[in-house]
């Protein structure tokens, strides 16, 4: 039963000398849920079309159950391999039930009518995808998502061992996306195999047992989601900077595009962010979005802020987890603070471990302290010393809440000469 259901042996497909698929050798076993990933134009759809035989390989061979694909009659193929196209709509108003019964076409002779059992299969499939009662609705009047589910039901009615799905959920909302993929997943438990071209890498990582990363028609990587969804593999293929993390709430791999500085922006002032415990996340993102160059620290290893700085390649001062900030650490971080035109102290709890951050803030040339807004947790201190140091440095700093700070950062007003003086004068 673990025998390969479908195998390609260095299959290529070329149009006018251009190889859209280039020497691809893959195989799919029963019980597998294989996700084809890759950027637009990587050849995902073409590969699927080769697998159903709509396109004929210009080189190489495809084997279905060990037999060359072209030796198997079309009807017999259709009883083993089904296909869900990217999007299908009909011009003519066919009722949903008629569409589903088309899935029985490969089983019916020219003069044979659909039997009661065919009807039963169609109704069961419709119920399975959660659209019972849709039998007499017109297919072309359904929403894109419903249409996709109906076509999936049609694929189920075809009762094949191998299902090829071409970006099946590009039209679906997140609920239906997940419903769709868990249904496909369930099929693999019945010893069927699913191959799906997927754009959404996060969905792919969650459901697929194996991923194949295509790049310009070639297999760039193949394996378990955690082996394929790696920055060093994805970045060159997608030609963009990605960030792969584990979602701390679901444990799933999450692939995101790293935020990029706006291109062509004039040199922006340097800002140093002193944060911790996630208090600097929003600010960091905002600063990156606005194009400021920034530095961060001092932060503990594995701290949420530190992880963000690391993945965004923001220079930061790190110390070991749970260790105390030493004067030497402050001295090191001060070099970054010295270079920054502005230092921002986020609102995080201060205790003996990170009192050093307040010492660092005290030495900043120009300091902005973010005040907790009315709905946020007030700043907390776990040591008297921390409270005293903070009180001292608060006197010589500017105070804003997060919203105000974002406004002045966005307008750039904060760096206009004299802004600081006005503040001091008004205090005096």
């Amino acid at each position, binding site marked *: 039963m673990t025998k390969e259901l479908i195998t390609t042996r260095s299959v290529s497909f070329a149009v006018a000398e251009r190889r859209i698929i280039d020497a691809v050798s893959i195989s799919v076993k029963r019980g597998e849920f294989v996700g084809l990933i890759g950027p637009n134009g990587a050849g995902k759809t073409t590969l699927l*079309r080769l697998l*159903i*035989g*709509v396109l004929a390989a210009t080189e190489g061979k495809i084997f279905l159950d060990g037999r060359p694909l072209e030796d198997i*009659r*079309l*009807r*017999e*193929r*259709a*009883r083993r*391999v*089904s*296909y869900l*196209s990217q*999007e*299908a*709509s*009909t*011009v*003519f*108003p*066919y*009722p949903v039930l*008629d*569409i589903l019964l*088309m*899935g029985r*076409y*490969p089983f*019916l002779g*020219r003069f044979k009518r659909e039997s009661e059992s065919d009807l039963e299969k169609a109704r069961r499939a419709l119920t399975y995808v959660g659209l019972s009662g849709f039998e*007499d609705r017109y297919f072309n009047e359904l929403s894109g998502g419903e249409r996709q589910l109906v076509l999936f039901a049609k694929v189920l009615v*075809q009762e094949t061992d191998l299902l*090829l799905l071409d970006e099946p959920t590009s039209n679906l909302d997140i609920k239906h996306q997940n419903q769709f993929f868990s249904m496909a997943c369930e099929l693999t438990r019945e010893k069927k195999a699913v191959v799906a071209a997927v754009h959404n890498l996060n969905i792919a990582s969650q459901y697929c047992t194996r991923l194949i990363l295509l790049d310009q028609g070639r297999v760039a990587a193949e394996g378990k989601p955690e082996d394929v969804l790696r920055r060093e593999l994805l970045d060159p293929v997608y030609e963009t900077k990605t960030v792969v993390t584990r979602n701390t709430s679901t444990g799933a791999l999450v692939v995101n595009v790293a935020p990029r500085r706006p291109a062509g922006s004039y040199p922006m002032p340097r800002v140093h962010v002193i944060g911790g415990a996630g208090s600097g996340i929003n600010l960091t993102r905002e600063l990156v979005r606005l194009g400021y160059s920034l530095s961060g620290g001092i932060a503990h290893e594995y701290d949420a802020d530190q992880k963000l700085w690391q993945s965004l390649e923001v220079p930061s001062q790190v110390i070991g987890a749970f260790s105390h900030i030493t004067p030497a650490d402050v001295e090191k971080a001060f070099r970054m603070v010295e270079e920054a035109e502005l230092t921002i102290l986020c609102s995080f709890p201060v205790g003996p471990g990170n009192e050093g951050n307040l010492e660092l803030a005290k030495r900043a040339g120009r300091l902005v302290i973010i005040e907790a807004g009315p709905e946020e947790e007030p700043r907390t201190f776990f040591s008297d010393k921390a409270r005293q140091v903070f009180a001292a440095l608060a006197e010589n700093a500017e105070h804003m809440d997060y919203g105000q700070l974002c406004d002045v950062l966005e307008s750039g007003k904060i760096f206009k000469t004299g802004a600081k003086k006005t503040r001091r004068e008004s205090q005096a």
Partner: protein
Amino acid sequence: MRRRKTAVLLILIVLLFVAIVLSIGSGAVRVPPLSILRLILNGVGFRSIELPPEMQINIILHIRLPRILAALLVGSALAIGGVAMQGLFRNPMASPDILGVSTGGSLGAVIAVNTGLFALNVFFLPLFAVVGALLASGLIYLISSYKGRTSLLFVVLAGLAISSLFNGLVSAILLFSQQYEVSQFIFWTMGGLEGRMWKHVLLPLPVLLPGMAVLFLFTRELNIFALGEENAHSLGMHVERTKRVILAITAVITGMAISISGPVGFVGLLIPHLFRMLIGPDHRLLLPVSAIGGALFLLASDLIGRVLIPPFEIRVGIITAVLGSPYFLYLIIRYQRKGLRGFGYD
């Protein structure tokens, strides 16, 4: 829906019967229905029933009946040709006349007439008509399969171009021919049923009827084309082969119909569309119902043309054009409003 389908079918059959009786009865010489009944009853064995006058019998048997049969045959052939082409191209704008297949048939027939070949052998006229129609649908097939993809709006535009080209050729040949007659010109550009005798009708019959019957075997395939060619392939259908067969049969029956009546327009466009709205797109039902509907439409159009301004006759092609063109315009406007979706684009 089921009740509606039965009702449509029943109404069609009743109307068809009424139209046949009226067609036998009306014209320059009126034949009362009672005479028809007497002729039929006598014919089926009730010898005691008095036959109607000799002249009436002659008019019925040699003028009216062949003309009626011609209308029925041509109407149903063009209508199911339209059903097949619309289904194949997933395009409610397609039909043998819009895509130039009818004009191709016309061109073939005109060549047969003008070269004098039609006088050598009675088979030449229908043969040439069929060859012309096949040529046109071959062109359509090549264009539609260009780069392996059927661009549906493109098919309609290409068809219109082919249609205009062939029409121009027909006009040119007729204008330069020595035995140029206005009636010939009108017949081969607009179509008509006047003067159709048994020989015109019976000759194509052995090809026309089996051809129509074969098309009935492909109704399930026509349904599956609705999902697109890729999906059709994945369901185990030989897409290109099926397309070729359906297009060829459509061309043959269209050519045969044209050899009877000339290129009568709009039947193949209007009838499938109308009945799809009434009974749904399932070709297993749409095809037979359209066949009856097309027959009725052409017979009724011919009847209207004959009785509207006696003693003159308006050619059936003019009547169908007058009825069909506004409908075609309505379709275009409707699809314009709905966007390209109506043309089969997703």
